[in-house]
């Protein structure tokens, strides 16, 4: 019931919905079948889900959902496991959770049982009711966009004819995944999404505006030395925090049932909810002043600016010196002429 309340609150639904959601959860005796696919991933999102405190992992797997296929946690292997997936596809109306990116360069970068991951995703999505991309890889492609030879793509780039919800963060926040599934089961609708197909409920506010260290920012207290105990609670902006450019509710809804979140633990925000993550948000632990345009990738913006202004100043100085040295000295009359001419 606590979970149902949390789901209701997360999507700002009227309190009455709590009952609907509880009902939907009960209906999970008919449990919504879930197929969990892993592509080019690190299983970190699975790990994150299994570390969930409320609901606990066993509650989630054994009671809340009916996970029919999950490469990491299922007991079955080989043909038996694949058979379970095929059976579920035949039944239809299930939810597909995709973890990890799909290679675009060549199908052979990611194959499972001799079948390419792209094909597996496409055929599994065929009869699905809802497709959820979890984690930054499944949302936007490989985390390091454009730098991996496999050119990983997000699930929304492939699945076009089914409702797709993306839940970026590295890894996925379990409460978001469970809430999204619960919302879908109780209302039959996909939650309101933003332009990146992220539920507005989780991804509409700037982290910076809700940051517990915002006061330090306003006060001008910026952490510059990790070893200085006085700076322990200071704003992490100068240490590369991407909070001012990251849309997420991390500051309000902490991880693992409110245990903690990056900034509270003293780590700058990496911006993992944003499509810019990781390549366009690097470096991680430094304020980002590099250009993100092709070969200019490592050139520092302030260096360019300082060089530009410095060149202007040097040019003016040199020109001024030249004027003193080279200007026609018999120009008294000429100056007069010129002034008149002008």
């Amino acid at each position, binding site marked *: 019931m606590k979970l149902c309340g949390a789901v209701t609150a997360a999507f700002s639904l009227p309190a009455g919905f709590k009952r609907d959601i509880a009902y939907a959860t009960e209906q999970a005796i008919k449990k919504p079948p879930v197929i969990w696919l892993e592509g080019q991933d690190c299983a970190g999102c699975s790990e994150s889900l299994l570390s969930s405190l409320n609901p606990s992992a066993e509650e989630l797997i054994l009671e809340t959902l009916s996970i029919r296929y999950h490469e990491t946690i299922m007991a079955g292997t080989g043909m038996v496991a694949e058979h379970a997936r095929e059976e579920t596809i035949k039944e239809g109306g299930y939810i597909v959770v995709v973890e990890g990116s799909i290679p675009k360069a060549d199908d052979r970068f990611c194959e499972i049982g001799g079948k390419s991951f792209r094909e597996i995703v496409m055929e599994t999505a065929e009869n699905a009711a809802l497709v959820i991309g979890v984690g930054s890889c499944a949302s936007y492609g490989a985390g390091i966009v454009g730098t991996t030879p496999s050119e990983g793509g997000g699930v929304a780039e492939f699945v076009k004819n089914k409702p797709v919800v993306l839940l970026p963060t590295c890894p996925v926040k379990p409460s978001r995944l469970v809430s999204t599934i619960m919302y879908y089961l109780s209302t039959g609708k996909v939650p309101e999404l933003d*332009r990146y197909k992220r539920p507005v409920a989780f991804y509409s506010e*700037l982290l910076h505006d809700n940051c517990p260290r915002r006061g330090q920012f306003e006060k001008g207290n910026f952490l510059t030395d990790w070893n200085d105990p006085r700076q322990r609670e200071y704003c992490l902006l100068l240490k590369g925090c991407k909070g001012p*450019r990251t849309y997420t509710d991390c500051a309000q809804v902490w991880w693992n049932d409110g245990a903690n979140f990056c900034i509270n633990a003293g780590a700058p925000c990496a911006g993992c909810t944003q499509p810019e993550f990781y390549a366009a948000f690097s470096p991680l632990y430094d304020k980002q002043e590099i250009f993100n345009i092709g070969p200019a990738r490592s050139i520092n913006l302030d260096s360019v600016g300082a060089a*530009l202004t410095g060149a202007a100043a040097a040019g003016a100085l040199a020109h001024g010196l030249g004027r003193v040295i080279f200007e026609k000295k018999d120009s008294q009359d000429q100056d007069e002429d010129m*002034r008149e*001419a*002008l």
Partner: protein
Amino acid sequence: MVKSSEIAVPRRVYHWINLVSMAVLAVSGWYVHKPFAPDLMGLMRYAHLTAAYIFSINLVLRVYYAFGKNGDWRKYLKPQINRKMLRLTFRHYLLYEHLPEGDHYRILQNASYLVIVILLFVQIITGVLLIEAEGSLPTQVITLLGGINAVRQGHLFLTWVFAAFTVIHVYMAFTEDFPKVKLIFLGMADEKYSGQ
């Protein structure tokens, strides 16, 4: 020196407001970028936004004035650039030859102002996008420009462009046309001066 109305009062007022607000914007903007002293962020952000509004309104009014009854839009939008004039101007800059009669210096000067004014409007737009980043129109524009970080970097880079321009602007004004400096700041002219 005598009082002169060579440069109309609105233009002089604009230039003063522009100078002060840009100086405030540069210092406070730099503080937001790289805080150089503790405990001032709130004040600096307030100063930056206040100066930004004053600067923007000032610029819009100046553009309005340029197209008004006594407007001077022609010299910015239709600079009389031709090959002969360019040749003479460059010889003047590179070889320190005296310019023959004519407004050679001012023609290129005005053309450069046109570019700068366009960039100033880009700067205003990027600035507004950074404050109001959450609406549906702003988010669309931000996406178009390549993300909020690109907008921030563009805002910062343009600041550097203006800094470089200011260096050249001040040098040129003082060395090429010092009487005009007195005109624009003080409204005073040497009796001999007859520029426009």
